[in-house]
Protein backbone atom coordinates (compact mmCIF):
# COMPACT_ATOMS: atom_id res chain seq x y z
CA UNK A 1 0.00 0.00 0.00
CA UNK A 2 1.31 3.41 -1.01
CA UNK A 3 4.70 1.87 -1.57
CA UNK A 4 5.79 3.95 -4.49
CA UNK A 5 4.61 7.18 -2.90
CA UNK A 6 6.76 6.78 0.16
CA UNK A 7 9.86 6.81 -2.03
CA UNK A 8 9.65 10.57 -2.49
CA UNK A 9 11.06 11.28 0.95
CA UNK A 10 14.74 10.54 0.63
CA UNK A 11 15.44 13.28 3.15
CA UNK A 12 16.33 12.69 6.75
CA UNK A 13 13.91 13.16 9.63
CA UNK A 14 14.34 15.02 12.86
CA UNK A 15 13.94 12.85 15.93
CA UNK A 16 12.68 14.22 19.20
CA UNK A 17 12.54 12.27 22.45
CA UNK A 18 9.98 13.95 24.64
CA UNK A 19 10.07 12.93 28.31
CA UNK A 20 10.44 9.28 27.33
CA UNK A 21 10.31 6.75 30.14
CA UNK A 22 10.48 2.98 29.96
CA UNK A 23 9.53 0.88 32.93
CA UNK A 24 9.48 -2.88 32.75
CA UNK A 25 6.69 -4.60 34.60
CA UNK A 26 7.73 -5.85 38.01
CA UNK A 27 10.74 -3.57 38.24
CA UNK A 28 10.57 -0.38 40.20
CA UNK A 29 13.59 1.32 38.61
CA UNK A 30 13.08 2.77 35.15
CA UNK A 31 15.23 1.49 32.29
CA UNK A 32 15.01 4.88 30.61
CA UNK A 33 14.08 7.79 32.83
CA UNK A 34 12.41 10.87 31.43
CA UNK A 35 14.70 11.19 28.43
CA UNK A 36 14.39 14.31 26.33
CA UNK A 37 16.62 15.11 23.40
CA UNK A 38 16.36 16.53 19.93
CA UNK A 39 18.37 15.02 17.10
CA UNK A 40 18.53 17.36 14.11
CA UNK A 41 17.79 15.78 10.73
CA UNK A 42 20.85 14.31 9.06
CA UNK A 43 23.03 14.12 12.16
CA UNK A 44 24.59 11.15 13.90
CA UNK A 45 23.59 10.98 17.53
CA UNK A 46 25.53 8.48 19.59
CA UNK A 47 23.92 7.02 22.69
CA UNK A 48 26.74 5.94 24.96
CA UNK A 49 27.09 4.83 28.53
CA UNK A 50 27.79 1.91 30.79
CA UNK A 51 25.60 -1.17 30.58
CA UNK A 52 22.35 -0.60 32.40
CA UNK A 53 22.24 2.92 31.02
CA UNK A 54 19.28 2.10 28.82
CA UNK A 55 20.91 3.18 25.57
CA UNK A 56 19.70 0.20 23.54
CA UNK A 57 16.29 0.45 25.17
CA UNK A 58 16.09 4.11 24.21
CA UNK A 59 17.01 3.27 20.62
CA UNK A 60 14.57 0.38 20.31
CA UNK A 61 11.70 2.58 21.39
CA UNK A 62 12.13 4.53 18.16
CA UNK A 63 11.12 1.58 15.99
CA UNK A 64 8.96 0.22 18.78
CA UNK A 65 10.76 -3.05 19.24
CA UNK A 66 10.27 -1.84 22.80
CA UNK A 67 7.11 0.02 23.65
CA UNK A 68 7.28 3.42 25.32
CA UNK A 69 5.81 3.53 28.84
CA UNK A 70 5.47 7.30 29.10
CA UNK A 71 6.30 10.22 26.87
CA UNK A 72 6.66 10.16 23.13
CA UNK A 73 9.15 10.02 20.29
CA UNK A 74 8.51 12.22 17.27
CA UNK A 75 9.82 11.62 13.76
CA UNK A 76 9.51 14.87 11.86
CA UNK A 77 6.84 15.89 14.30
CA UNK A 78 4.86 12.69 13.95
CA UNK A 79 4.51 10.43 16.98
CA UNK A 80 5.92 6.95 16.43
CA UNK A 81 3.05 5.74 18.54
CA UNK A 82 0.54 7.04 16.04
CA UNK A 83 2.03 5.05 13.14
CA UNK A 84 1.28 1.45 12.31
CA UNK A 85 4.26 -0.43 13.73
CA UNK A 86 5.08 -2.46 10.58
CA UNK A 87 4.86 0.68 8.45
CA UNK A 88 7.07 2.55 10.92
CA UNK A 89 9.78 -0.10 10.89
CA UNK A 90 9.92 -0.23 7.13
CA UNK A 91 10.75 3.46 7.16
CA UNK A 92 13.62 3.02 9.61
CA UNK A 93 16.89 1.28 8.77
CA UNK A 94 18.03 -1.13 11.45
CA UNK A 95 21.57 -2.44 11.94
CA UNK A 96 22.56 -4.67 14.85
CA UNK A 97 25.84 -5.90 16.27
CA UNK A 98 25.45 -9.49 15.15
CA UNK A 99 24.17 -8.30 11.78
CA UNK A 100 21.35 -10.84 11.63
CA UNK A 101 21.60 -11.49 7.91
CA UNK A 102 19.21 -14.17 6.72
CA UNK A 103 21.53 -17.16 6.23
CA UNK A 104 19.20 -18.85 3.76
CA UNK A 105 19.03 -15.89 1.42
CA UNK A 106 21.62 -14.64 -1.02
CA UNK A 107 23.25 -11.28 -0.42
CA UNK A 108 21.01 -9.73 -3.07
CA UNK A 109 17.87 -11.18 -1.47
CA UNK A 110 18.96 -9.99 1.94
CA UNK A 111 19.39 -6.46 0.67
CA UNK A 112 16.11 -6.62 -1.25
CA UNK A 113 14.08 -7.54 1.85
CA UNK A 114 12.40 -4.23 2.59
CA UNK A 115 12.01 -3.10 -1.06
CA UNK A 116 10.21 -6.42 -1.68
CA UNK A 117 7.94 -5.87 1.30
CA UNK A 118 7.17 -2.45 -0.12
CA UNK A 119 6.30 -3.99 -3.48
CA UNK A 120 9.03 -2.45 -5.62
CA UNK A 121 9.35 -3.72 -9.19
CA UNK A 122 12.00 -6.34 -9.96
CA UNK A 123 14.07 -4.08 -12.16
CA UNK A 124 14.05 -1.31 -9.60
CA UNK A 125 15.13 -3.71 -6.85
CA UNK A 126 17.90 -5.08 -9.02
CA UNK A 127 19.37 -1.71 -9.81
CA UNK A 128 19.03 -0.62 -6.18
CA UNK A 129 20.89 -3.71 -4.96
CA UNK A 130 23.75 -3.06 -7.38
CA UNK A 131 23.92 0.56 -6.32
CA UNK A 132 24.00 -0.34 -2.62
CA UNK A 133 26.66 -3.01 -3.02
CA UNK A 134 28.87 -0.46 -4.68
CA UNK A 135 28.07 2.11 -2.02
CA UNK A 136 29.18 -0.18 0.82
CA UNK A 137 32.25 -1.39 -1.02
CA UNK A 138 31.18 -4.85 -2.14
CA UNK A 139 31.47 -6.38 -5.58
CA UNK A 140 28.16 -5.95 -7.45
CA UNK A 141 29.16 -8.63 -9.94
CA UNK A 142 30.27 -11.53 -7.76
CA UNK A 143 28.72 -10.86 -4.37
CA UNK A 144 24.94 -10.74 -4.97
CA UNK A 145 24.57 -14.49 -5.42
CA UNK A 146 26.72 -15.46 -2.46
CA UNK A 147 25.36 -16.48 0.92
CA UNK A 148 26.11 -14.64 4.16
CA UNK A 149 28.28 -17.44 5.54
CA UNK A 150 30.60 -17.03 2.57
CA UNK A 151 31.47 -13.51 3.67
CA UNK A 152 33.85 -12.28 6.38
CA UNK A 153 32.47 -10.49 9.43
CA UNK A 154 33.31 -7.10 7.99
CA UNK A 155 31.69 -7.91 4.66
CA UNK A 156 28.60 -9.20 6.46
CA UNK A 157 28.20 -5.92 8.29
CA UNK A 158 28.59 -4.07 4.98
CA UNK A 159 25.66 -6.12 3.70
CA UNK A 160 23.81 -5.33 6.94
CA UNK A 161 24.32 -1.64 6.24
CA UNK A 162 23.20 -1.99 2.63
CA UNK A 163 20.12 -3.91 3.74
CA UNK A 164 19.23 -1.21 6.27
CA UNK A 165 19.58 1.52 3.66
CA UNK A 166 17.80 -0.38 0.89
CA UNK A 167 14.49 1.47 0.93
CA UNK A 168 16.14 4.81 1.58
CA UNK A 169 14.88 5.25 5.15
CA UNK A 170 14.83 8.68 6.72
CA UNK A 171 16.29 7.34 9.95
CA UNK A 172 18.80 4.62 10.76
CA UNK A 173 19.18 2.86 14.07
CA UNK A 174 22.54 1.21 14.66
CA UNK A 175 23.05 -0.95 17.72
CA UNK A 176 26.80 -1.43 18.28
CA UNK A 177 27.15 -2.11 14.57
CA UNK A 178 30.92 -2.51 14.61
CA UNK A 179 31.19 -4.05 18.07
CA UNK A 180 31.85 -7.60 16.92
CA UNK A 181 34.58 -6.73 14.42
CA UNK A 182 38.34 -6.87 14.85
CA UNK A 183 39.94 -3.46 15.54
CA UNK A 184 41.32 -2.98 12.03
CA UNK A 185 38.07 -3.85 10.29
CA UNK A 186 36.13 -1.76 12.80
CA UNK A 187 38.32 1.27 12.15
CA UNK A 188 37.90 0.88 8.41
CA UNK A 189 34.12 0.49 8.60
CA UNK A 190 33.85 3.48 10.93
CA UNK A 191 35.73 5.62 8.43
CA UNK A 192 33.69 4.33 5.53
CA UNK A 193 30.44 4.86 7.35
CA UNK A 194 31.36 8.47 8.08
CA UNK A 195 32.19 8.97 4.40
CA UNK A 196 28.93 7.28 3.45
CA UNK A 197 26.99 9.37 5.92
CA UNK A 198 28.41 12.57 4.50
CA UNK A 199 26.88 11.41 1.22
CA UNK A 200 23.49 10.12 2.32
CA UNK A 201 22.88 12.37 5.34
CA UNK A 202 20.44 10.17 7.19
CA UNK A 203 19.51 10.82 10.77
CA UNK A 204 21.40 8.12 12.65
CA UNK A 205 21.00 6.91 16.20
CA UNK A 206 24.11 4.96 17.02
CA UNK A 207 24.50 2.95 20.22
CA UNK A 208 27.89 2.02 21.61
CA UNK A 209 29.53 1.52 24.99
CA UNK A 210 32.87 2.71 23.63
CA UNK A 211 33.46 6.40 24.31
CA UNK A 212 36.19 6.59 21.68
CA UNK A 213 33.82 5.30 19.03
CA UNK A 214 31.19 7.76 20.25
CA UNK A 215 33.62 10.66 19.92
CA UNK A 216 34.67 9.53 16.47
CA UNK A 217 31.21 8.84 15.06
CA UNK A 218 28.94 11.35 16.76
CA UNK A 219 27.86 14.80 15.67
CA UNK A 220 26.31 14.73 19.11
CA UNK A 221 26.73 12.39 22.02
CA UNK A 222 24.13 11.53 24.63
CA UNK A 223 25.74 10.00 27.69
CA UNK A 224 23.35 7.87 29.71
CA UNK A 225 24.09 6.67 33.20
CA UNK A 226 22.68 3.76 35.21
CA UNK A 227 18.93 4.03 35.50
CA UNK A 228 18.58 5.50 32.03
CA UNK A 229 19.25 9.07 33.10
CA UNK A 230 20.70 11.49 30.57
CA UNK A 231 23.96 12.75 32.03
CA UNK A 232 24.95 15.05 29.18
CA UNK A 233 23.94 15.71 25.59
CA UNK A 234 26.24 17.80 23.46
CA UNK A 235 28.85 17.76 20.74
CA UNK A 236 31.92 15.62 21.41
CA UNK A 237 34.12 18.68 21.74
CA UNK A 238 31.82 20.37 24.23
CA UNK A 239 31.51 17.22 26.34
CA UNK A 240 35.26 16.70 26.41
CA UNK A 241 35.85 20.36 27.21
CA UNK A 242 33.16 20.65 29.85
CA UNK A 243 31.98 17.39 31.32
CA UNK A 244 28.70 18.07 33.10
CA UNK A 245 29.67 16.21 36.23
CA UNK A 246 32.03 13.78 37.87
CA UNK A 247 30.34 10.80 36.22
CA UNK A 248 30.79 12.19 32.72
CA UNK A 249 34.37 13.24 33.46
CA UNK A 250 35.18 9.73 34.60
CA UNK A 251 33.33 8.17 31.70
CA UNK A 252 35.13 10.18 29.03
CA UNK A 253 38.43 9.45 30.77
CA UNK A 254 41.31 11.35 32.29
CA UNK A 255 42.82 11.78 28.83
CA UNK A 256 39.89 13.81 27.58
CA UNK A 257 42.19 16.63 26.49
CA UNK A 258 44.00 14.23 24.21
CA UNK A 259 40.66 13.04 22.88
CA UNK A 260 39.74 16.61 22.13
CA UNK A 261 42.98 17.06 20.24
CA UNK A 262 42.08 14.01 18.18
CA UNK A 263 38.93 15.76 16.98
CA UNK A 264 40.84 18.43 15.09
CA UNK A 265 43.45 18.41 12.39
CA UNK A 266 46.35 20.74 11.83
CA UNK A 267 44.57 22.10 8.80
CA UNK A 268 41.72 23.26 11.06
CA UNK A 269 43.81 25.52 13.28
CA UNK A 270 45.69 28.74 12.84
CA UNK A 271 49.40 28.12 12.57
CA UNK A 272 52.31 30.26 13.67
CA UNK A 273 54.54 31.94 11.17
CA UNK A 274 57.90 30.31 10.62
CA UNK A 275 60.65 32.55 12.14
CA UNK A 276 62.76 34.00 9.33
CA UNK A 277 60.94 31.74 6.93
CA UNK A 278 63.48 29.05 7.63
CA UNK A 279 61.63 25.82 8.27
CA UNK A 280 64.53 23.46 7.67
CA UNK A 281 65.11 23.28 11.44
CA UNK A 282 61.79 21.60 12.14
CA UNK A 283 60.48 18.10 11.59
CA UNK A 284 57.61 18.20 9.12
CA UNK A 285 54.10 16.85 9.48
CA UNK A 286 51.14 16.66 7.07
CA UNK A 287 48.31 19.12 7.58
CA UNK A 288 45.80 16.28 7.61
CA UNK A 289 47.34 14.95 10.86
CA UNK A 290 45.19 15.21 13.97
CA UNK A 291 46.43 17.49 16.73
CA UNK A 292 46.78 14.46 18.94
CA UNK A 293 49.04 12.68 16.49
CA UNK A 294 51.02 15.89 16.03
CA UNK A 295 51.57 16.03 19.78
CA UNK A 296 52.65 12.42 19.78
CA UNK A 297 55.16 13.23 17.06
CA UNK A 298 56.57 16.12 19.12
CA UNK A 299 57.04 13.83 22.09
CA UNK A 300 58.62 11.21 19.91
CA UNK A 301 61.01 13.68 18.28
CA UNK A 302 61.67 15.53 21.50
CA UNK A 303 60.76 18.84 19.81
CA UNK A 304 58.40 21.63 20.78
CA UNK A 305 57.60 22.66 17.21
CA UNK A 306 56.63 21.02 13.96
CA UNK A 307 56.49 22.44 10.46
CA UNK A 308 53.09 21.74 8.92
CA UNK A 309 53.17 20.74 5.27
CA UNK A 310 50.07 21.45 3.25
CA UNK A 311 49.93 20.61 -0.43
CA UNK A 312 53.67 20.19 -0.70
CA UNK A 313 54.71 23.40 1.01
CA UNK A 314 55.16 24.51 4.59
CA UNK A 315 52.16 26.51 5.74
CA UNK A 316 53.32 27.31 9.27
CA UNK A 317 54.45 26.06 12.63
CA UNK A 318 52.61 24.24 15.39
CA UNK A 319 54.00 24.18 18.93
CA UNK A 320 53.24 22.47 22.24
CA UNK A 321 52.23 25.80 23.77
CA UNK A 322 49.97 26.37 20.81
CA UNK A 323 48.15 23.08 21.41
CA UNK A 324 47.89 23.74 25.13
CA UNK A 325 46.37 27.14 24.39
CA UNK A 326 43.70 25.51 22.27
CA UNK A 327 42.65 23.41 25.24
CA UNK A 328 43.14 26.06 27.89
CA UNK A 329 40.06 28.33 27.88
CA UNK A 330 37.61 25.58 28.63
CA UNK A 331 39.88 24.05 31.25
CA UNK A 332 39.92 27.35 33.06
CA UNK A 333 36.17 27.78 32.84
CA UNK A 334 35.77 24.51 34.57
CA UNK A 335 37.72 25.55 37.61
Amino acid at each position, binding site marked *: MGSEGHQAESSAAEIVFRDVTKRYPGRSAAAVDNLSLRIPAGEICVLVGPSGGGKTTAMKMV*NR*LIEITEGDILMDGQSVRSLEV*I*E*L*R*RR*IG*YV*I*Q*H*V*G*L*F*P*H*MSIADNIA*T*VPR*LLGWSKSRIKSRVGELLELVGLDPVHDPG*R*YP*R*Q*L*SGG*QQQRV*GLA*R*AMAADPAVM*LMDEPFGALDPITRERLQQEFLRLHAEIRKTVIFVTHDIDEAIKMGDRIAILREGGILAQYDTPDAILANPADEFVARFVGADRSLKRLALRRLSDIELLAVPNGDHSLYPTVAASTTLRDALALMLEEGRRELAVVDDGRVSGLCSVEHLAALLAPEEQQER
Partner: protein
Amino acid sequence: MIFTSAASAPPPVIPNYGGPQGGAHGCIAQNGTFCWDWVKGHWGDILQPRLLEHLEMTAIAVGIGFAIAFLAALLAHRKHWFEGPFGAFSAFLYTIPSLALFQLLVPFTGLTMLTIEIGLVGYTLLILFRNILAGLHGVPEDVLEAARGMGLTRRQVLFRVELPLAFPAISAGVRIAVVTTISLATVAAYITPLGLGQPIFNGLQTDFTTEFVATGALAVALALAADTALVALQWAFTPWVRARRAT
Protein backbone atom coordinates in the same frame (compact mmCIF):
# COMPACT_ATOMS: atom_id res chain seq x y z
CA MET B 1 20.90 -78.57 -1.61
CA ILE B 2 21.78 -82.03 -0.37
CA PHE B 3 18.93 -83.59 -2.24
CA THR B 4 19.81 -83.38 -5.86
CA SER B 5 17.70 -86.04 -7.42
CA ALA B 6 14.01 -85.51 -7.99
CA ALA B 7 13.28 -88.94 -6.59
CA SER B 8 14.77 -88.26 -3.17
CA ALA B 9 13.32 -84.73 -2.94
CA PRO B 10 10.82 -84.32 -0.13
CA PRO B 11 7.40 -83.04 -0.99
CA PRO B 12 7.29 -79.24 -1.13
CA VAL B 13 6.76 -77.75 2.29
CA ILE B 14 4.30 -75.26 0.94
CA PRO B 15 2.76 -76.61 -2.19
CA ASN B 16 0.84 -73.40 -2.75
CA TYR B 17 4.03 -71.55 -3.16
CA GLY B 18 5.17 -73.26 -6.26
CA GLY B 19 5.40 -71.40 -9.47
CA PRO B 20 2.61 -69.14 -10.59
CA GLN B 21 0.69 -72.24 -11.67
CA GLY B 22 1.24 -74.05 -8.41
CA GLY B 23 3.77 -76.51 -9.75
CA ALA B 24 6.56 -76.70 -7.23
CA HIS B 25 10.08 -77.04 -8.50
CA GLY B 26 13.71 -76.77 -7.48
CA CYS B 27 14.57 -74.32 -4.79
CA ILE B 28 10.94 -73.50 -4.10
CA ALA B 29 9.95 -77.09 -3.60
CA GLN B 30 12.85 -77.56 -1.23
CA ASN B 31 12.12 -74.30 0.61
CA GLY B 32 15.61 -72.88 0.14
CA THR B 33 16.53 -69.79 2.15
CA PHE B 34 16.01 -67.55 -0.82
CA CYS B 35 14.54 -68.49 -4.18
CA TRP B 36 14.89 -65.90 -6.88
CA ASP B 37 12.39 -67.84 -8.99
CA TRP B 38 9.70 -67.21 -6.43
CA VAL B 39 10.43 -63.53 -6.34
CA LYS B 40 10.22 -63.30 -10.11
CA GLY B 41 7.07 -65.38 -10.19
CA HIS B 42 5.27 -63.34 -7.54
CA TRP B 43 6.49 -59.82 -8.17
CA GLY B 44 3.31 -58.98 -10.02
CA ASP B 45 0.72 -60.62 -7.75
CA ILE B 46 2.29 -60.31 -4.30
CA LEU B 47 5.35 -58.12 -3.95
CA GLN B 48 4.55 -55.11 -6.09
CA PRO B 49 0.95 -54.61 -4.88
CA ARG B 50 2.04 -54.98 -1.23
CA LEU B 51 4.92 -52.57 -1.81
CA LEU B 52 2.56 -49.95 -3.21
CA GLU B 53 0.13 -50.46 -0.32
CA HIS B 54 3.00 -50.08 2.07
CA LEU B 55 4.12 -46.88 0.43
CA GLU B 56 0.57 -45.55 0.55
CA MET B 57 0.12 -46.39 4.23
CA THR B 58 3.41 -44.70 5.04
CA ALA B 59 2.67 -41.62 2.98
CA ILE B 60 -0.77 -41.17 4.55
CA ALA B 61 0.56 -41.70 8.07
CA VAL B 62 3.50 -39.32 7.71
CA GLY B 63 1.38 -36.81 5.82
CA ILE B 64 -1.33 -36.63 8.45
CA GLY B 65 1.17 -36.92 11.27
CA PHE B 66 3.13 -34.04 9.79
CA ALA B 67 0.06 -31.87 9.46
CA ILE B 68 -0.89 -32.44 13.10
CA ALA B 69 2.66 -32.10 14.43
CA PHE B 70 3.28 -29.00 12.34
CA LEU B 71 0.23 -27.18 13.64
CA ALA B 72 0.99 -28.31 17.18
CA ALA B 73 4.60 -27.12 16.85
CA LEU B 74 3.50 -23.73 15.51
CA LEU B 75 1.12 -23.38 18.41
CA ALA B 76 3.81 -24.42 20.90
CA HIS B 77 6.20 -21.95 19.26
CA ARG B 78 3.76 -19.11 19.87
CA LYS B 79 2.26 -20.31 23.15
CA HIS B 80 4.95 -21.94 25.20
CA TRP B 81 2.54 -23.52 27.65
CA PHE B 82 1.40 -25.84 24.88
CA GLU B 83 4.78 -27.50 24.40
CA GLY B 84 4.66 -29.51 27.64
CA PRO B 85 1.22 -31.08 27.29
CA PHE B 86 1.55 -31.96 23.61
CA GLY B 87 5.09 -33.23 24.10
CA ALA B 88 3.92 -35.46 26.93
CA PHE B 89 0.92 -36.65 24.93
CA SER B 90 3.02 -37.59 21.88
CA ALA B 91 5.66 -39.21 24.08
CA PHE B 92 2.95 -41.24 25.78
CA LEU B 93 1.64 -42.46 22.40
CA TYR B 94 5.18 -43.34 21.41
CA THR B 95 5.64 -45.60 24.41
CA ILE B 96 2.61 -47.81 23.72
CA PRO B 97 3.71 -51.10 22.12
CA SER B 98 2.46 -51.10 18.55
CA LEU B 99 0.59 -54.42 18.66
CA ALA B 100 -1.16 -53.35 21.83
CA LEU B 101 -2.12 -50.02 20.33
CA PHE B 102 -3.60 -51.61 17.21
CA GLN B 103 -5.46 -54.12 19.35
CA LEU B 104 -6.82 -51.35 21.56
CA LEU B 105 -8.20 -49.53 18.55
CA VAL B 106 -9.90 -52.52 16.94
CA PRO B 107 -13.09 -52.32 19.08
CA PHE B 108 -13.57 -48.75 17.87
CA THR B 109 -12.42 -48.74 14.30
CA GLY B 110 -12.44 -52.42 13.39
CA LEU B 111 -9.98 -54.40 11.34
CA THR B 112 -9.46 -51.57 8.92
CA MET B 113 -6.88 -49.35 7.36
CA LEU B 114 -8.19 -46.57 9.62
CA THR B 115 -7.05 -48.47 12.70
CA ILE B 116 -3.61 -48.83 11.23
CA GLU B 117 -3.34 -45.21 10.18
CA ILE B 118 -4.41 -43.94 13.59
CA GLY B 119 -1.68 -46.02 15.16
CA LEU B 120 0.99 -45.03 12.65
CA VAL B 121 0.11 -41.35 12.84
CA GLY B 122 0.37 -41.56 16.62
CA TYR B 123 3.92 -42.84 16.37
CA THR B 124 5.07 -40.07 14.04
CA LEU B 125 3.88 -37.25 16.27
CA LEU B 126 6.67 -37.28 18.84
CA ILE B 127 9.49 -37.27 16.30
CA LEU B 128 7.91 -34.69 14.02
CA PHE B 129 6.73 -32.39 16.79
CA ARG B 130 10.12 -32.35 18.51
CA ASN B 131 12.05 -31.78 15.30
CA ILE B 132 9.82 -29.04 13.94
CA LEU B 133 9.89 -27.25 17.27
CA ALA B 134 13.65 -27.67 17.60
CA GLY B 135 14.03 -26.22 14.11
CA LEU B 136 11.91 -23.19 14.98
CA HIS B 137 13.68 -22.68 18.29
CA GLY B 138 17.05 -22.94 16.55
CA VAL B 139 16.60 -19.78 14.50
CA PRO B 140 19.23 -17.32 15.79
CA GLU B 141 17.87 -14.48 17.90
CA ASP B 142 19.78 -11.81 15.94
CA VAL B 143 18.18 -12.98 12.70
CA LEU B 144 14.73 -12.68 14.27
CA GLU B 145 15.50 -9.28 15.70
CA ALA B 146 16.68 -8.02 12.32
CA ALA B 147 13.56 -9.42 10.67
CA ARG B 148 11.24 -7.75 13.16
CA GLY B 149 13.23 -4.54 13.08
CA MET B 150 12.88 -4.35 9.31
CA GLY B 151 9.13 -4.52 9.54
CA LEU B 152 8.29 -8.11 8.69
CA THR B 153 4.92 -9.12 10.09
CA ARG B 154 4.72 -12.19 12.32
CA ARG B 155 3.46 -14.22 9.43
CA GLN B 156 6.27 -13.01 7.18
CA VAL B 157 8.83 -13.79 9.87
CA LEU B 158 7.38 -17.31 10.08
CA PHE B 159 7.21 -18.07 6.38
CA ARG B 160 10.23 -16.15 5.10
CA VAL B 161 12.65 -16.64 7.95
CA GLU B 162 11.73 -19.19 10.61
CA LEU B 163 10.41 -22.02 8.46
CA PRO B 164 13.15 -21.86 5.80
CA LEU B 165 15.78 -21.87 8.53
CA ALA B 166 14.03 -24.70 10.37
CA PHE B 167 13.83 -26.72 7.17
CA PRO B 168 16.94 -28.88 7.75
CA ALA B 169 15.71 -29.89 11.22
CA ILE B 170 12.20 -30.47 9.94
CA SER B 171 13.34 -32.63 7.07
CA ALA B 172 15.59 -34.60 9.40
CA GLY B 173 12.46 -35.31 11.46
CA VAL B 174 10.52 -36.36 8.39
CA ARG B 175 13.31 -38.76 7.42
CA ILE B 176 13.23 -40.47 10.81
CA ALA B 177 9.43 -40.55 10.77
CA VAL B 178 9.33 -42.09 7.29
CA VAL B 179 11.90 -44.77 8.06
CA THR B 180 10.30 -45.76 11.36
CA THR B 181 6.83 -45.77 9.82
CA ILE B 182 7.96 -48.03 6.97
CA SER B 183 9.31 -50.42 9.53
CA LEU B 184 6.31 -50.16 11.84
CA ALA B 185 3.75 -50.49 9.06
CA THR B 186 4.75 -54.14 8.59
CA VAL B 187 3.00 -54.83 11.88
CA ALA B 188 -0.22 -53.55 10.33
CA ALA B 189 -0.78 -56.88 8.60
CA TYR B 190 -1.64 -58.24 12.02
CA ILE B 191 -4.86 -56.23 11.75
CA THR B 192 -5.61 -56.24 8.08
CA PRO B 193 -3.80 -57.86 5.14
CA LEU B 194 -2.19 -54.74 3.74
CA GLY B 195 1.37 -53.79 2.98
CA LEU B 196 4.62 -55.69 3.12
CA GLY B 197 3.73 -57.07 6.53
CA GLN B 198 1.24 -59.38 4.91
CA PRO B 199 3.72 -61.58 2.98
CA ILE B 200 6.03 -61.50 5.98
CA PHE B 201 3.33 -62.89 8.25
CA ASN B 202 2.42 -65.39 5.60
CA GLY B 203 6.00 -66.50 5.28
CA LEU B 204 6.39 -66.81 9.03
CA GLN B 205 3.19 -68.79 9.44
CA THR B 206 3.97 -71.19 6.64
CA ASP B 207 7.69 -71.59 7.22
CA PHE B 208 8.35 -70.65 3.62
CA THR B 209 11.49 -68.60 4.12
CA THR B 210 11.80 -66.98 0.70
CA GLU B 211 8.60 -65.06 1.15
CA PHE B 212 9.56 -63.24 4.34
CA VAL B 213 13.19 -62.87 3.41
CA ALA B 214 12.26 -61.26 0.09
CA THR B 215 9.58 -59.06 1.61
CA GLY B 216 11.76 -58.04 4.51
CA ALA B 217 14.51 -57.09 2.10
CA LEU B 218 11.98 -55.09 0.11
CA ALA B 219 10.90 -53.21 3.23
CA VAL B 220 14.53 -52.36 3.99
CA ALA B 221 15.08 -51.29 0.40
CA LEU B 222 11.97 -49.11 0.54
CA ALA B 223 13.18 -47.41 3.71
CA LEU B 224 16.61 -46.76 2.23
CA ALA B 225 15.16 -45.46 -1.03
CA ALA B 226 12.74 -43.15 0.77
CA ASP B 227 15.51 -41.84 3.00
CA THR B 228 17.78 -41.23 0.03
CA ALA B 229 15.02 -39.40 -1.80
CA LEU B 230 14.42 -37.17 1.21
CA VAL B 231 18.13 -36.43 1.55
CA ALA B 232 18.18 -35.43 -2.11
CA LEU B 233 15.17 -33.20 -1.58
CA GLN B 234 16.78 -31.53 1.41
CA TRP B 235 19.98 -31.02 -0.56
CA ALA B 236 18.08 -29.40 -3.40
CA PHE B 237 16.20 -27.02 -1.13
CA THR B 238 19.06 -25.82 1.04
CA PRO B 239 21.79 -24.47 -1.21
CA TRP B 240 22.71 -22.05 1.58
CA VAL B 241 23.78 -24.89 3.85
CA ARG B 242 26.25 -26.15 1.27
CA ALA B 243 27.72 -22.75 0.48
CA ARG B 244 31.43 -22.80 1.13
CA ARG B 245 32.40 -20.86 4.20
CA ALA B 246 34.52 -17.75 4.01
CA THR B 247 38.13 -18.56 4.81
